[in-house]
């Protein structure tokens, strides 16, 4: 049923959807970042937020700025990035890795771990701490990648607001951490700085899961809460990339609401822990 009120609403909504499609196409053609296979609801939310925050009249005006102002695109890229992560998010995931997966990785003389979509680095430092405590750090190489160079810069610095530390400490303890969490950082006014040696074996690099390909053979891929933003085709493409990157018997860890079950590579993996979404690539 259409009332006069919602007729206008429907027309606006249709126009906005067209503008969003055009904006995403413009970003791809101008900057090479491909958001065409992202879920639309989240992108729409971010785009409408930015349009309103800047006091613009339409998404087309936003597109104009994206195309004509180079620096402006950084802001949009930040809007589209998932900048919110936390240290030891889902402590059960880390506890399961400690118990079930790291003992297996310990059998390799040298271990390579890819943290895909590492954003601002909270997960990177969580992994470095865990691996150190499990006695693996000296022979581990961590590749921490993200498509957003500004997020990577934050990740490299390892400086986070002190206000988050209470939650992180609780997460760390629940993840079966073995020391005092405060051993790993120094507080400085409103910030904490994580110890330099935690990133000694970390390589931070730009990598776009949508447009880039395999860059190394690794023993474990961790990619949490990235696939939830992708449509089915893109999810399939990215899990294939993970499978190709893993050694036989290598491990894949996804976010708690992500699942290999409905993807093309399901036959190539066995389930290590169904709840924590940890998988192992089959030997044959």
């Amino acid at each position: 049923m259409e009332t006069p009120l919602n007729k206008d609403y429907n027309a606006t909504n249709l126009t906005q959807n067209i503008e969003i499609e055009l904006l995403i196409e413009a970003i791809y053609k101008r900057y090479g970042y491909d958001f065409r296979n992202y879920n639309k609801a989240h992108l729409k939310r971010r785009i409408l937020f930015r349009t309103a925050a800047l006091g613009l009249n339409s998404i087309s005006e936003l597109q104009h700025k994206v195309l004509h102002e180079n620096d402006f695109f950084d802001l949009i890229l930040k809007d589209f990035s998932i900048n919110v992560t936390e240290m030891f998010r889902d402590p059960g995931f880390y506890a399961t890795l400690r118990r079930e997966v790291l003992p297996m990785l310990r059998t390799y003389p040298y271990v390579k771990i890819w943290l895909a979509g590492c954003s601002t680095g909270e997960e990177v430092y969580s992994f470095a701490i865990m691996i150190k405590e499990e006695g693996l750090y000296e022979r581990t190489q961590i590749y921490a990648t993200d498509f957003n160079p500004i997020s990577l810069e934050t990740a490299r610095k390892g400086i986070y607001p002190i206000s988050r530390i209470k939650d992180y400490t609780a997460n760390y303890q629940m993840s079966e951490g073995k020391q005092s969490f405060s051993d790993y950082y120094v507080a400085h006014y409103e910030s904490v700085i994580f110890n330099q040696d935690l990133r000694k074996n970390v390589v931070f690099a730009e990598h776009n899961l949508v447009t880039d390909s395999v860059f190394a053979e690794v023993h474990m891929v961790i990619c949490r809460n990235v696939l939830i933003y992708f449509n089915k085709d893109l999810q399939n493409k990215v899990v294939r990339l993970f499978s190709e990157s893993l050694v036989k018997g290598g491990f894949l860890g996804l976010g708690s609401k992500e699942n290999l079950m409905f993807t093309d590579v399901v036959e190539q993996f066995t389930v290590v822990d169904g709840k924590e979404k940890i998988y192992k690539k089959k030997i044959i």
Partner: protein
Amino acid sequence: MDFEAVVIGSSAGGLKALKTIILGLDKTFSIPIIVVQHMSPHSDSFMSRYFNQLSHLQVKEADEREPVRPSHMYLAPPNYHLLVEEDKTLSLSVEEKVNYARPSIDVLFESAAFAWGSRLIGIVLTGANNDGATGLKKITQAGGLAIIQSPETAEVPIMPISAIDNCPDAIILKLEDIPLFLNKL
């Protein structure tokens, strides 16, 4: 008018309020229901199991890319925002908290308004903050129907009051009348 979905937002006191609604629905009620209940990020899936035992509806935690189906009730997973895509599938996000909440009621309501327009019912229940007020307004702007639990029947009236302030045209119902209203649709 044919409604295609119901979205519900609840916070403090919500478990009890949701239970009242679920138990009050007729066995023939089959419009999909999608719920954001504020909860600790470390909650387990107790709520979906509990409600599933109580209800004739299939109650489950929402999965990403899941199509919204009749006779189902979907709950936002802890520590994720729940959104509806315009093709009526569900999606999740870990973007920053909205109104200090993840999941946020506003995020669900706004995306559901885009997806269903005038064929959507939004319901704001008991709670101690103002999440849901903005989203409910978006639902009415899309031509959908807004229902708010009457503050005097709410365990914590702040959220209903804030929703009423923002959506003066909403229908205000006592908690126990909400399922009766839904049954008549």
